[in-house]
């Protein structure tokens, strides 16, 4: 199906072999930005989410000050539209990557935007863990570290994977948005050909590719989550 579709496209008037190559590269670049950003953003978001749960009033180590700070940071970052954030952090991007455009440069704002988002996803997953199980671990003399690593993260595993799937989809969307300012990848192609040159066919192909990518990620994520969930009798 898909190959026939590409075949048809490549023989079309406006889309040649070079275009197919460009789309293939765009797909790879998009995947690169999405995956690297997601991994890097989890390095920020996961500890931040854990800290939010642990320092909450009814958490394992309540700490109003730390909780409030993280809470406010998460809210501020998440309330800035991504496109604005992208522009706001250009100086930071320049300092880290050396330039403000291109796929690698896009990763910086993606990580900054996704980190707090991930923190919220992780927070809500961890809050789903049965309080009774945590209490049981406490009654056995478990410390905070053990409870976080061996009880909360393990019990919330499936929910965390579903969260990661949602995060991947969101970052993919953001990366496409970064195309408007020369971010590279499929979003970039869609903007340049679809918007600036008004080549609708190329725009539609990129849109379909983006949809397919999200579908595949979603399918794989949900499958993995279910496969690892021991609450389901299988």
């Amino acid at each position, binding site marked *: 199906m898909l190959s026939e579709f590409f075949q048809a496209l490549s023989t079309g008037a406006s889309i040649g072999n070079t275009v197919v190559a460009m789309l293939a590269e765009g797909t790879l670049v998009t995947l690169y930005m999405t995956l690297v950003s997601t991994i890097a953003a989890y390095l920020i978001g996961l500890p931040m989410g854990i800290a939010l749960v642990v320092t909450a009033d009814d958490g394992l180590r309540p700490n109003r000050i730390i909780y409030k700070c993280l809470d406010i940071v998460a809210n501020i970052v998440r309330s800035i539209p991504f496109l604005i954030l992208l522009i706001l952090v250009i100086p930071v991007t320049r300092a880290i990557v050396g330039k403000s455009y291109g796929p690698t440069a896009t990763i910086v704002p993606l990580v900054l935007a996704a980190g707090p988002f991930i923190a919220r996803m992780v927070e809500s997953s961890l809050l789903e863990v*049965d309080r*009774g*199980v945590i*209490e*049981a*671990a*406490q*009654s*056995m*003399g*478990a*410390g905070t570290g*053990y409870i976080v690593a*061996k*009880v909360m993260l*393990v*019990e919330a*595993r*499936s929910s965390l994977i579903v969260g990661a799937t949602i995060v991947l989809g969101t970052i993919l969307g953001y990366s496409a948005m970064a195309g408007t300012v020369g971010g590279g990848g499929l979003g970039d192609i869609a903007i340049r050909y679809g918007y600036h040159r008004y080549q609708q066919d190329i725009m539609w192909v990129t849109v379909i590719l983006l949809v397919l990518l999200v579908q595949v990620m979603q399918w794989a994520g949900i499958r993995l989550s279910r496969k*690892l*969930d*021991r*609450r*389901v*009798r299988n």
Partner: protein
Amino acid sequence: MEPIIQIQKVSKTFRGRDNQVEALKGITLDIEKGDICGIIGMSGAGKSTLVRCLNYLEKPTSGTVLIENKDLSAMSERELRKIRTEIAMIFQHFNLLMQRSVLDNVCVPMEIAGVKKKDARKRALELLEVVGLGDKAKSYPAQLSGGQKQRVAIARALANNPKILLCDEATSALDPTTTKSILKLLQQINREFGITIVIITHEMSVVQEICSHVAIIDNGVLAESGTVTEVFEQPKSSAAKKLVYMVNPRVERMTSRRCIRIVFQENSSFEPVIANMILECKAVVNILKADTSDIGGIAHGQMILQLPQERADADRMIQYLRDRRLIVEEVEDYVE
């Protein structure tokens, strides 16, 4: 010998934003080593808070708890975690880790205590045999029934050779048959390993079944405590009476207001005591409540009878029962 658990003037107040709840009001109670002590009360009486004070999951607002003469209130967080490995706990909803296998669940306390993985697995398998689930090691909790889950929880509780086992409504989510089998298992554990057991429950039948001692908590206060026999035969406080009689609402037709409670404890279950009494006295009684069982040919339990209006008949019946060495006491206001 010093009691293994000494609860000294423990009070606990929960403070909300603009209200406060006194869950416990100065409770003092000793629990001896090797006892099975029931702590019973209506829901909201404070018993769950009290049991959490015994391992300091809940810190008392005032007063303290001594475990083997060691004052929990003087302990650091680290010391508390250490002593908690000696005080196991099981729960109403089992609280097993759903994402870990049965075997891994039993290994958890040993993992916390730093036991080597290989030794832990070996001991976990032994414990699963003790609770009769040797074949379920590789299963996950979701694949087990309620009774089986509680057995896993008990195996887990025994992992670190605790001195004390706290049971928080451990049978309340189970059906009567499963409850009986879990209580039997607890009794066996108490006898074989000499573990002191504290059982929190709202069911008198649980206390009757296995406890040696009972403490009745009512509205945050210790209403009464003693051996189960003492409290069951002659409840003094109104809270105790309420639990023992389990007040049954009004009865119609028989108009007499005179009721008695009789306790069976040594009569042969083959002797039809009540039927003989009716034949002998030629007057009828109304059985308002009966909770008896046959244990090894001896009748155990209690019955509440509404006596005939005629005073002479009623007196004769009481005499008849006393002659047969039954404990008889008049119950006031049982019927209205």
